[in-house]
């Protein structure tokens, strides 16, 4: 390991601009002649649009244009798409309703985009938007995923009973048979609470049309600008890809919510042509973010686990209702299916599993991938029921897990996944030690003396990320391939530019990707720059989500570096008058075996560009290579998290007093950054478990948690410092042996926290978030019983 190579705690290269206020986020960019957009949004959960009268608004000061679905139809701009086809178990394709970029005839959730006002200033656009008169015919609505299928509300004509699909996985007959032989069956009903992602940078877009070249540019807060360009070009039909540039500059957090193609960005770039090519900027107010960013989770699940007398799991049955919101967002359909039910085996050797998922429309904001996407939901079901089963069977929860761990690899689960490597017991042992599990009873007694209830909870999670072989996901319904591309440009002086299709919005790629280059080429880290986020610069890319940038994105870079090395060896051989087979490359220096001849990497780069010393018919001048990497399997990070809480019996306040995370991410490029990813993920999971929950009012359909006044974001005093540990089994499916680390914290932690809270209270279940009020309510029956 060099000081800046793989495994080094290199300080982030990108930090300089962020700590000095020189980051360049979309809203920081202002284009000449820029106008501002403000969206007219539905105040109703469900209503027909009888008419839209823009006459008064059009006369307001500064108004440049007002557009509605009529204008969208005139220009034949297509609707938003869902890029993953799911078939129901009866073989029928999912039943998706249209998702126009400006509502056509009907609105389906509070915040649905109805019209856009473009004006000279933000304030003028907002004032005029308030003057747009929309006449609504209010319809009955349903916001509750548990009630949508049986309600009389019809959200889309295409989906009777509001059901998009009824999908299943696993062997139902075999699972039912396993239950018949069970000595013990544990049953549980769980709600995975709806969350609002809340990246700190609100979504924003600037659309600009150049009348001279008939070319569009879109600056947008995206995790995957190339995918945005592909969709806006191919499905919205705005312009062919070579006439559309999408730039995602610095992006202030994504967590999934900036993967998707949203109406606002399409409207801004489309409408710019309508106003003669003046740029249009839109920046979400936080309230708009709450209303219109794709939300996460929102599952209602019934699960049953069958055990033999010794606690060995025999079978697992799961039935889930998953909210889709009012429209299918870009990847909504794959989240509660292939990203969820395929992980229901957890870390356990379970002979038979059967799961059924209903995807359901509700009159709420669309639901799509949010940090972990399906895998936190799966982990929650598995780890809550496993912990409950252990309690019911009077087995130590650690011991129960130990009895059921998968111990040999590769392991084919009954739900598609083939786990390639892992050592779950190693993580458990390390976590028990870090958490001082043995000392827990004494700590519990000490808490009790102070009027506090102490509990401990486990979560032994596994996730699949670095998604995945394109052919495999294609066969499961994905509309795109899930490879990644990279280009390595070596400049004549030996400095290196990496062009990557991955997108960094907090992950630190400018540092970790450069570390890979340092390791491979032996160049100074200051001589490496990472270029991303611009479709005019980077040839193509699938972007960053699903913890894929290391395992997939860096592997693409690694492959391109292989080619660079091979080419450079040829050049070096020619210059040093040796055979390429005799040239060795180590620590940035090319040597010829058995001689003292050597050339530094930079010298070879220069030689490649001046091209004086080799025959250009045999070796092309220059040193630039590209690669596409399509993974052969998912990667499977796994680990054990242990959470310890103290509950104030008087108030119901739960405090996380100790949190241990032991993770196996395979090879780690930069431990400092990986630890940061784990910290952030855990905090989000603690947020889900204890503080966060999106609430729509059943009666009015209004979003009650529409600002930080009511949506409880975890703050610094809601979380403790975390104790981290790592184990390592290398991932066999990529040359670096990497797994993914971006989502693990958010996947593991809700179950660990809720297992701890239920342990403290001595209750079977508690809804998330376990807010003070929720906990207090749960304690009332116990107090009454005690009286």
């Amino acid at each position, binding site marked *: 390991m060099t000081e800046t190579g793989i495994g080094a705690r290199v300080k982030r290269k990108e930090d300089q601009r962020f700590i000095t206020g020189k980051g360049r986020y979309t809203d920081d960019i202002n284009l000449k002649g820029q106008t501002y957009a403000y969206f007219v949004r539905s105040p109703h959960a469900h209503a027909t649009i009888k008419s839209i009268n823009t006459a008064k608004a059009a006369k307001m000061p500064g108004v440049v244009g007002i557009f509605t679905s009529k204008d969208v139809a005139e220009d034949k701009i297509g609707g938003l798409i869902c890029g993953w086809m799911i078939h129901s178990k009866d073989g029928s394709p999912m039943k998706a309703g249209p998702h126009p970029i400006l509502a056509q005839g009907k609105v389906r959730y509070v915040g649905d985009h109805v019209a856009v006002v473009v004006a000279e200033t933000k304030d003028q656009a907002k004032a005029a938007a308030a003057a747009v008169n929309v006449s609504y015919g209010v319809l009955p609505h349903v916001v509750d995923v548990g009630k949508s299928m049986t309600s009389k509300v019809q959200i889309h004509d295409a989906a009777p009973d509001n059901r998009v699909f009824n999908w299943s996985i696993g062997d139902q007959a075999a699972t039912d048979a396993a239950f018949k032989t069970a000595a013990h069956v544990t049953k549980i009903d769980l709600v995975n609470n709806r969350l609002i992602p809340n990246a700190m940078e609100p979504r924003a877009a600037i659309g600009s049309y150049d009348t001279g070249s008939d070319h569009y540019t879109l600056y947008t807060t995206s995790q995957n600008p190339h995918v945005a360009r592909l969709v806006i070009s191919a499905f919205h039909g705005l312009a062919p890809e070579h006439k559309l540039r999408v730039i995602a500059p610095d992006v202030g957090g994504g967590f999934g919510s900036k993967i998707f193609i949203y109406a606002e960005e399409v409207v801004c770039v489309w409408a710019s042509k309508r106003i003669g090519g003046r740029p249009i900027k839109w920046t979400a107010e936080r309230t708009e973010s709450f209303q219109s960013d794709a939300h996460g989770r929102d599952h209602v699940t019934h699960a049953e686990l069958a055990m033999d007398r010794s606690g060995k799991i025999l079978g697992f049955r799961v039935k889930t209702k998953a909210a889709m919101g009012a429209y299918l967002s870009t990847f909504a359909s794959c989240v509660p299916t292939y990203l969820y039910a395929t992980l229901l085996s957890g870390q356990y050797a379970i002979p038979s599993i059967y799961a059924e998922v209903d995807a359901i429309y509700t009159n709420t904001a669309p639901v799509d991938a949010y940090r972990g996407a399906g895998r936190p939901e799966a982990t929650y079901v598995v780890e809550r029921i496993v912990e409950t089963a252990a309690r019911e069977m009077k087995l130590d929860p650690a011991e129960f897990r130990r009895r059921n761990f998968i111990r040999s690899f590769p392991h084919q689960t009954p739900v598609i996944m083939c786990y390639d490597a892992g050592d779950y017991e190693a993580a458990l042992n390390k976590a028990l030690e870090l958490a001082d599990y043995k000392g827990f009873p004494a700590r519990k007694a000490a808490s009790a003396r102070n009027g506090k209830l102490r509990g401990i909870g486990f979560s032994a999670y596994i996730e699949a990320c670095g998604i995945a072989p394109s052919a495999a996901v294609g066969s499961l319904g994905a509309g795109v391939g899930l490879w990644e591309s990279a280009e390595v440009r070596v400049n004549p002086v030996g400095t290196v530019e990496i062009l990557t299709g991955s997108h960094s919005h907090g992950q630190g790629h400018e540092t970790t990707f450069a570390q890979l280059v340092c390791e491979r080429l032996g160049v100074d880290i200051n001589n490496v720059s990472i270029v991303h986020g611009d479709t005019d610069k980077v040839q193509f890319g699938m972007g960053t989500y699903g913890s894929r940038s290391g395992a997939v994105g860096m592997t693409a870079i690694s492959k391109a570096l292989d080619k660079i090395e091979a080419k450079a060896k040829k050049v070096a051989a020619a210059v040093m008058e040796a055979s390429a087979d005799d040239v060795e490359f180590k620590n940035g220096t090319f040597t010829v075996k058995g001689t003292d001849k050597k050339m530094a990497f930079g010298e070879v780069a220069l030689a490649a560009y001046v091209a004086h010393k080799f025959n250009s018919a045999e070796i092309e001048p220059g040193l630039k290579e590209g690669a596409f990497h399509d993974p052969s399997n998912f990667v499977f990070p796994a680990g054990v998290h242990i959470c310890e809480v103290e509950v104030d019996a008087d108030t119901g306040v739960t405090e996380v007093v100790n949190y241990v995370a032991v993770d196996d991410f395979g090879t780690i490029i930069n431990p400092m950054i990986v630890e940061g990813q784990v910290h952030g993920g855990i905090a989000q999971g603690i947020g889900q478990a204890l503080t966060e929950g999106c609430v729509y009012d059943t009666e009015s359909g209004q979003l009650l948690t529409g600002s930080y006044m009511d949506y409880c974001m975890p703050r610094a005093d809601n979380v403790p410092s975390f104790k981290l540990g790592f184990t390592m089994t290398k991932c066999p499916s990529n040359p670096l042996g990497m797994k993914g680390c971006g989502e693990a914290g958010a996947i593991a932690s809700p179950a660990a926290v809720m297992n701890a809270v239920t342990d403290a209270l001595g209750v079977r279940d508690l809804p998330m978030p376990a807010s003070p009020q929720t906990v*207090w309510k749960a304690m009332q029956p116990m107090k009454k019983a005690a009286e």
Partner: protein
Amino acid sequence: MENFGYHRPAKVADAVKIMKKAKDGKYLSGGMTLLPAIKQGLATPSDVIDLGGIKNAGVSVSAKSVTVKAGTAHGDVAADKGVRKAIPALAVLASSIGDPHVRNRGTIGGSVANNDPAADYPAAVLGLGATVHTSERKIPADKFFTGMFTTALKGNEIVTAVEFPLPAKAGYAKFPNPASRYAMVGVFVAKMKDSAVRVAVTGAGPAVFRIPEMEAALAKDFSAKALAGISVKAKGLNSDMHASAEYRAHLIGVMARRAVAAAK
């Protein structure tokens, strides 16, 4: 946000004059409540009269009282050595308002005049039986807070200071709303020098209110134990997704006990 005329008078009398002329004027002090309200379109004043130009900030402590001028920021009250010695509970309360940045800008005058049901200061004003000094008169706390966001202030009247009598002992305990951190329940208890006890509750009802039953019990025995068995009725208390009226009623009891235990 909607535009408005901005005024920054240097004297109280000038502020009143401008207000009288304004179509729909609003006084602005720290702006911690008014500005978010204007941003959200909940308030659309024609004129905003910024009282920040009236240099009216500072704390004075006498043998009988602590007087906080209306323009004094919460953070300055929290950090004031005189306050911390004379009425530690008042400093504790001020240090629990909002967050450090809010405390650097929000003022006691603005908080008291606005009378947000979840604001902290009203609990101290009522709990200590303070006197609110205005541009026109002096108003005792018991007559000042009249209801949700309403006070005894007349249209143009400006709070100029709040005078808190020194108690023998006082304490404040707050249960913040988990999301907004405003008081979901805040209880201020004070044992006055004449042995009278006052218990004032904020956050739990439409406006700050006293609990005579607790006051009577504490007057006999100023200890947390004395509150055992006194339960607060949920009827009439605020209820929202964060706390039902029942939960708030329960928390009043817990916070009252904690305030008494913390009283200095």
